[in-house]
């Protein structure tokens, strides 16, 4: 069939979880049931009818059988409109697209997750995938940093994650407040607060460019090789199918070849970092 790849499918808003003052996790269901069969780390194009389309990473794991989740900050036209939706409202979805995280290659290996602010959203899809396929994977360290305590995402997951055998959760903030009794400092400092194994370990980083810059320096110091460090690139893709050119980085398209790249691959593409 020559079905147009510009046709969205419908999804229905089922739940909203406020994460921070400007960020919400939205749970959607498909009218036909099931989920998007996404690979952790993939993206989709979200349509808010009457407003437009925007690329959003999927925060839920495909092991979540009857829904999918998007964790979104209200920062652009489309995302602001998304935040105004009510339970039962419909959105359009195209995708999922992109390579996703290497879930096969990661089998039998340990995983370090390093998140800055909203960066935990795409990483969570893989964290929960590992949690639900626990025997296939090694140890997991989750290092999450945010500007202030109220900027942390998925605080409601911390407890569950830290109770999983072989999982360790460490969090920090740039600036604490009266409620915060934990670490204060940049997320990279958490790398030195626990015993992270370098051998047989892949690192997944998501966060602002400045954080990525310093964390990769820390990782190099600890002995991590560039091809064991992975991250996702963010670009404003308009088509999601390697045509519109907006996400072009070197000879790669973030929507098709990414969004997940190793640090070694990123270094090869001019303008990626």
């Amino acid at each position: 069939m020559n079905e147009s790849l510009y046709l969205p499918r419908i999804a229905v808003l089922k739940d909203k979880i406020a994460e921070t003052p400007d960020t919400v996790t939205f749970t959607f269901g498909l009218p036909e049931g099931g989920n998007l069969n996404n690979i952790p780390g993939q993206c989709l194009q979200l349509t808010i009818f009457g407003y437009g389309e925007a690329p959003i990473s999927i925060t839920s794991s495909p092991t979540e059988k009857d829904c999918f989740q998007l964790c979104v900050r209200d920062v652009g036209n489309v995302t602001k409109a998304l935040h105004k939706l009510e339970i039962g409202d419909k959105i359009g979805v195209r995708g999922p697209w992109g390579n996703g995280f290497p879930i096969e290659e990661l089998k039998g290996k340990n995983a370090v997750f390093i998140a800055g602010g909203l960066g935990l959203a795409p990483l969570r899809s893989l964290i929960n995938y590992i949690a639900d396929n626990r025997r296939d994977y090694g140890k997991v360290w989750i290092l999450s940093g945010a500007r202030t305590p109220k900027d942390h995402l998925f605080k409601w997951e911390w407890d569950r994650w830290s109770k999983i055998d072989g999982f360790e959760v460490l969090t920090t903030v740039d600036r604490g407040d009266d409620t915060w009794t934990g670490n204060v400092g940049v997320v990279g400092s958490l790398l030195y607060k626990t015993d992270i194994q370098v051998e047989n370990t892949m690192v997944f980083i998501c966060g602002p460019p400045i954080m990525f810059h310093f964390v990769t320096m820390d990782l190099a110091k600890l002995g991590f090789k560039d091809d064991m460090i992975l991250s996702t690139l963010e670009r404003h893709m308009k088509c999601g199918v390697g045509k519109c050119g907006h996400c072009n980085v070197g000879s790669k398209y973030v929507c098709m070849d990414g969004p997940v790249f190793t640090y070694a691959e990123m270094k090869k593409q001019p303008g990626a970092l």
Partner: protein
Amino acid sequence: MKRLFKEDVASFVRELKRSYKVAAPQERDGEYAFDFVEDEDKVVLDYPSTILPIKKFFFPPEEIILEYDLSDKEEIKFKSEPKADEICILGAHPCDINALIRFDMVYLDDKFDPFYKKRREHALIIGVYCTHPSESCFCGSMGTDRVEDGYDLMLIDGGDEYGVEIGSEKGDRIVNSMDIFKDGKDIERPKLEGFIRGVETDDLPELMLKKYESDLWNDFGEKCLGCGKCVLVCPTCFCYNVVDDIGLDGKNGERKRIWDGCVLTDFTLVAGGFNFRKDRTSRLKQRILHKFSYFDDKYGVSGCTGCGRCINVCPADIDCTRVINLLRSESK
């Protein structure tokens, strides 16, 4: 080899118009432009270059890719249906046919664009070998003054007549079903001479990457006005933006795609205000590197076909052949 006498071209066009909407070069304000033919006598097959390439017939400057109807809240209705007329592009030069081949690489991959595909499937391409390069042309050095693929028929100028090369079954059927084509001797493809511009293409993709940090880029970046004319006239610039328009009653929406270009300010702007290529130099560099390095890395051929239109229209006199030649001499 079959031949078509030049005095029969108008009759040939008339004949083609029975089955196709025929677009061919015609004079417009002292220049030449591809346009649908009304008067067959106005078709000009011996022309230097057209203002715009033929991409506009396959990838219009603006088109609707999705329509949605929100009047029934229970069931949102969509439409994304490509439509295409039977068209014939008559008189395309090898540089522009080579550009179409590059467009196909991007738009007809396994995630093919249905709008482009439909138009391509309903198009007949009759090219003509260019006989004299213009001042800004450099197809000679890009190897795109020749064409082996991507056409149904190719016309070779032989004085009073055109020799006809057949490139497809469709082309073969046309030649053999019309009396206007006569048997004749073989006519050789012309050898283009007299190029003013050129680039050395050996290891060009690698050279461009190696010179990524060169200060030379700033010299050109500071001159660039970021106007995007180079993108509009480029036969291989395929980028687009997507915008939604909604009716005043909020019931009907249209999603349009509109030509876009990487030299324009907002091209890499993301929500929240961050721009990955916020200065003109990085945008100009992106465009030239994409043509001469990135595209080659991904598809195995240069993304530029040397048509020279970007050089011709640039208000800041930025000439990609000069950029490349300066970068190369810097590295020697």
